[in-house]
């Protein structure tokens, strides 16, 4: 007889879903929960990707799937009356200086109203998804789960089956949000290995404008954390979004992140992904350009050391003519860390006059660091302009010597070179407070490389 004793995260999560489903009694017939149930069915059919999976060839997630994770509610979520410790997190560490934002705090995937601070303005709805499910049911039922596909995506199916909280943002027609929206996702692992599921829905109507910043952090390092973050963004006609994702978890943290933008006619999206810490980070960033004359800018910075693995997968789907996409990612890898970049550009048959640019540049600062970078162009239209390039190099010794010959110490010279390498991406970011904040973090990270 062969007894299988190995722990299986998928089985454990299916068990969790069953319990979750049973607890819900009343809600269990809602449209929303129906969507969760379908996702759970899909999740059941899928398995966590191994290195045999083409899209996960260089990203081994065994360290994640071997572990048990629970969706614990943090004690920090108890409101101050019932919170015997009367403990509040000092958010100062997570707030970029000079950023006057509406702040939404999620701890272990649940909205913390006592830590959040949201102003109310006409035409703008900013709230926890959990609240929106009850209050904005029609909008949620119409849009939730419509844009991010979870078929053949185990993590997305997992996110969709447990989805219950996150950011809900609706900017009505022609509204421009004066204040940026800052979402802080904080993991508290004090009760055990933590699974934090965040699910965001962002609807930006015609002519509206918004700036969104997402920051990922760990509050402590008692245990491991697994963050599964999924964001759907519908960008209306002529709307503009300036989006930042700052991945700053600790070295006991794993993160899966899926962001799907759907752009309607003449809309513009700038998205900036900055990955500076976390033990394993996988990003799936997808764009669907379904209206003409859209602009999409995808900027990325990743600096890894130790045994970190940062994997950036992107897909820009040019479904209609006359759109422009520009992807620009740069990374520095030290220690025995690994980078993965896979940028897919899909230009469909109808998408004539597409301009698609992609560039990925890497510097390896240690002999044991590595990067697998692969552009993937699938072009079915004939009148298009696509350029792509990927480079990987070491520190430029000639440049180092040049600087030394001007009296600049070798270490300083190294830092200046690395900083200026990354600087080219920083220049593409619009928010001054975020640029300053990120620059400081990069500075500190470069010190360790």
């Amino acid at each position: 007889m062969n007894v299988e004793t190995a722990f299986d995260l998928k089985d454990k999560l299916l068990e969790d879903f069953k319990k979750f489903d049973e607890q819900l009694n009343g809600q269990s017939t809602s449209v929303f929960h129906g969507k969760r149930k379908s996702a759970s069915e899909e999740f059941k059919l899928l398995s966590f990707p191994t290195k045999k999976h083409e899209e996960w060839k260089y990203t081994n997630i065994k360290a994640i799937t071997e572990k048990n994770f629970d969706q614990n509610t943090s004690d920090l979520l108890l409101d101050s009356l019932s919170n015997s410790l009367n403990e509040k997190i000092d958010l100062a560490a997570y707030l970029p200086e000079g950023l006057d934002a509406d702040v939404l705090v999620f701890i272990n995937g649940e909205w913390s109203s006592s830590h959040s601070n949201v102003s109310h303005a006409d035409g703008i709805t900013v709230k926890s998804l959990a609240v929106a499910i009850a209050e904005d049911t029609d909008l949620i039922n119409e849009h939730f789960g419509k844009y991010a596909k979870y078929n053949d995506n185990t993590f997305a199916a997992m996110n969709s089956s447990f989805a219950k909280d996150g950011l809900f943002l609706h900017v009505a027609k022609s509204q421009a949000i004066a204040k940026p929206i800052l979402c802080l996702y904080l993991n508290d692992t004090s009760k055990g290995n933590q699974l934090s599921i965040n699910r965001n829905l962002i609807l930006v109507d015609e002519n509206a404008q918004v700036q969104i910043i997402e920051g990922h952090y760990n509050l402590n390092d008692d245990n491991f954390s697994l963050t599964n973050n999924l964001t759907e963004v519908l960008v209306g006609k002529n709307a503009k979004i300036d989006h930042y994702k700052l991945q700053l978890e600790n070295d006991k943290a794993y993160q899966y992140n899926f962001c799907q933008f759907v752009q309607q006619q003449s809309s513009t999206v700038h998205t900036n992904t900055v990955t500076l810490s976390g033990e394993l980070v996988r990003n799936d960033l997808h764009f669907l350009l379904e209206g003409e004359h859209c602009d999409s800018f995808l900027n990325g910075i990743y600096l890894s050391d130790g045994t970190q693995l940062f994997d950036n997968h992107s897909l820009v789907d040019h479904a209609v003519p006359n759109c422009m996409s520009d992807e620009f990612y740069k990374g520095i890898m030290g220690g025995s860390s690994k980078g993965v970049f896979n940028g897919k550009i899909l230009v469909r048959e109808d998408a004539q006059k597409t301009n698609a640019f992609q560039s990925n540049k890497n510097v390896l600062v240690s002999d044991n660091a590595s990067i697998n970078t692969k552009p993937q162009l699938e072009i079915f239209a004939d009148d298009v302009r696509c350029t792509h390039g990927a480079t990987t190099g070491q520190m430029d010794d000639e440049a180092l010597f040049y600087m030394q010959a001007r009296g600049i110490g070798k270490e300083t010279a190294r830092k200046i070179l690395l900083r200026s390498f990354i600087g080219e991406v920083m220049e593409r970011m619009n928010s001054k407070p975020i640029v300053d904040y990120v620059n400081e973090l990069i500075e500190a990270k470069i010190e360790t490389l």
Partner: protein
Amino acid sequence: MIKIENLQASVDGKEILRGINLEVKAGEVHAIMGPNGSGKSTLASVLAGKEDYEVTGGSVNFDGKDLLDLEPEDRSREGVFLAFQYPIAIPGVSIANFIKTAVNEKRKYHGMEDVKATDFLKMIKEKMSLLEIDNKFLGRSLNEGFSGGEKKRNEILQMAMLEPKLSILDETDSGLDIDALKIVANGVNKLKSDKNASIVITHYQRLLDHIVPDFVHVLLDGKIVKSGDKNLALELEEKGYDWIKEEQKALA
């Protein structure tokens, strides 16, 4: 100021400098000429401290210090300046920031405070106007997309800002048009004093018309085989190097 004795250096086991002897005193200008591949740039690089070259023998005394014992950055801070034959581009680092960093690193080494931003700006603008470099260059990335001549002028700008004791100009004239050559030479001459010195590496007399050398040396196969005054350069211009090579053969 600098005394080079029997300096030998090789790269990848290949001997390139085969016993160089040269003394340069404060206030002097020395020209080094010689055919392609004779080792002129190698000598300059060895003096500046490039790691690729292994010093296999000899010594270099710079103002009482063992130059070969210093890191490249310390040689620069002590006052050795090399204007590169092929300056490197450094994208994302502006000229202004780069030079300011260099100036401050030198000041720090000598126990001085950082230069005041306003003083720095005033000084660099002054030097730029001396070298007829447009102010817009301040914000440009170092040598990125610069024309050959712009790169050379930028080297001299850095020299002017760092005020070295010994400057080594490696073919600073190459890539310069006639007007630019005069401007650069004029700049170099203005910086000249009885406290500093220059080694000018060149193939052409036209530079030496403007920067008049006190001594001219011929480098051949990694050795200085002939030295003379400025007339030696004129003679080389006229006759080339074959006669010196013949002389060397006869000696051997």
